[in-house]
């Protein structure tokens, strides 16, 4: 019985991911192109503002590459949350008329963003090669960044989608929370800009740690195990906690949505 349940759960995830990918790109031809255009356009804009006008010091790293490397991780997080925050509301009909584990809804929307992440990553590597950056064997560590990134994203999507389904105001509040998170995460500036006494903000923010170690890996070929292992543990813990909370209140969703 247990084995069958897990099998059905995975099958549900699969069909929901396929459904999301199909309906996302069926309607528009440009749809797929937007995956490429979005990070490039944001990187160009931010490059002008923070690279040319405000001139953030990134010590020898071209600012365009610097900001693009941060955006690969940040955009993946932000877009997944923006997509999955309404996942329960969009599927209200399904929730009130059929019985299935509701957590597959936000999780499938998050997982459907993995191809986008990989494409963004390839764009970044392409520009790195183009500007003469030497890429070496340490890049094989990149897949390990995806595990904590997607665990953390999935955890937040569970919390946000649930809260949003019950208090519709929360969707709007999420936009502001994401804005705050964007500025306290070293996306447009290096992590070293944060004063020592606020260091805890970086250490407690998995995205900040991931972006910082990602840049160390990309631009200095350094693998920062001392930050990397804690961030994996932290993401696992946050995910387990969020899933526990979601499962605890899952039964209330059909009555309250």
């Amino acid at each position, binding site marked *: 019985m247990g084995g069958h349940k897990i099998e059905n759960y995975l*099958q549900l995830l699969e*069909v929901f991911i396929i*459904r999301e990918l199909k309906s996302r790109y069926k*309607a528009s031809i440009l749809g797929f192109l937007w995956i490429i255009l979005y990070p490039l356009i944001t990187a160009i804009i931010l490059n002008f503002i923070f690279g040319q006008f405000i001139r953030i010091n990134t010590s020898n790293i071209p600012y365009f590459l610097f900001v693009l490397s941060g955006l690969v991780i940040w955009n993946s997080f932000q877009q997944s949350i923006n997509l999955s925050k309404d996942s329960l509301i969009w599927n209200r*009909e*399904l929730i*009130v*008329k059929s*019985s299935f584990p509701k957590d597959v809804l936000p999780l499938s929307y998050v997982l459907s963003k993995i191809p986008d992440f990989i494409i963004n990553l390839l764009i970044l590597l392409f520009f790195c090669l183009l500007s003469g950056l030497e890429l070496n064997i340490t890049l094989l560590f990149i897949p390990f960044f995806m595990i904590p990134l997607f665990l953390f994203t999935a955890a937040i999507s569970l919390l946000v989608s649930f809260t949003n389904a019950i208090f519709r105001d929360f969707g709007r509040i999420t936009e502001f929370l994401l804005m705050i998170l964007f500025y306290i995460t070293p996306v447009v500036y290096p992590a070293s800009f944060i004063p020592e006494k606020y260091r805890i903000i970086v250490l407690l923010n998995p995205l900040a740690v991931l972006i910082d170690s990602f840049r160390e890996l990309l631009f200095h070929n350094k693998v920062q195990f001392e930050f990397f292992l804690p961030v994996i543990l932290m993401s696992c813990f946050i995910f387990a906690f969020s899933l526990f909370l979601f499962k605890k209140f899952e039964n209330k969703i059909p009555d*309250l949505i």
Partner: protein
Amino acid sequence: MREPAVLLKNITKRYYLEKPRTFKKWFNTFFSPFSKLTVIDNFSLNVYEGEFVLITGPNGCGKTTLLKLIAGIIKSDKGIIKTYGRVVPLIELGAGFNNELTGQENAVINATILGVEKKKIKKIMPKIINFSGLKDFIDTPVKRYSSGMISRLAFSIAIYSEPDILLLDEIFAVGDEEFRKKSLNQLEVFKKKGVTIILCSHYDFKMQLIDRFIKLSNLHARR
């Protein structure tokens, strides 16, 4: 000795009349809790394997709520619910179909939600297409379907998902005469196979298939 299929013991279900949609309302609940409407109060029912039960009653008496409770879509506030075997609910035909996707793509999703394995879905798909009579439209997006086509597809999926307990809510209100006859024939086949069927309807229609009639009354008729 007859085996039980569905056991309901002292079920009570209360719905929120108002949902705490906004933070303001949510804060207010600290001072005045939400009023809840009792839809089902201390209700018990045993349905045996292979039985065909018809539940009738006026609007708002809790027919759909009862089916949703049995299907596990919602949870009761009090009482114990036990079901034996695969429960397939047809609360609203075609609920949750994705408009952009084709009939076949929706059928795969729907069957998965009903708990059918991937291999099985592949096997039953031709039967679903055949029974629904949608051969020429199965690769058309569902948004182009008529309401009758949607109900035919949904009903066909439910039939071939091999239910042990089939829960039907007002399903004969839609579909044309021919499909209705076909569906009733199918219910007869199920009955012979020993599938438990619980059907909800406004109408107190008499059928030889039906073993037991249950009439629910509205708890809030005076309002």
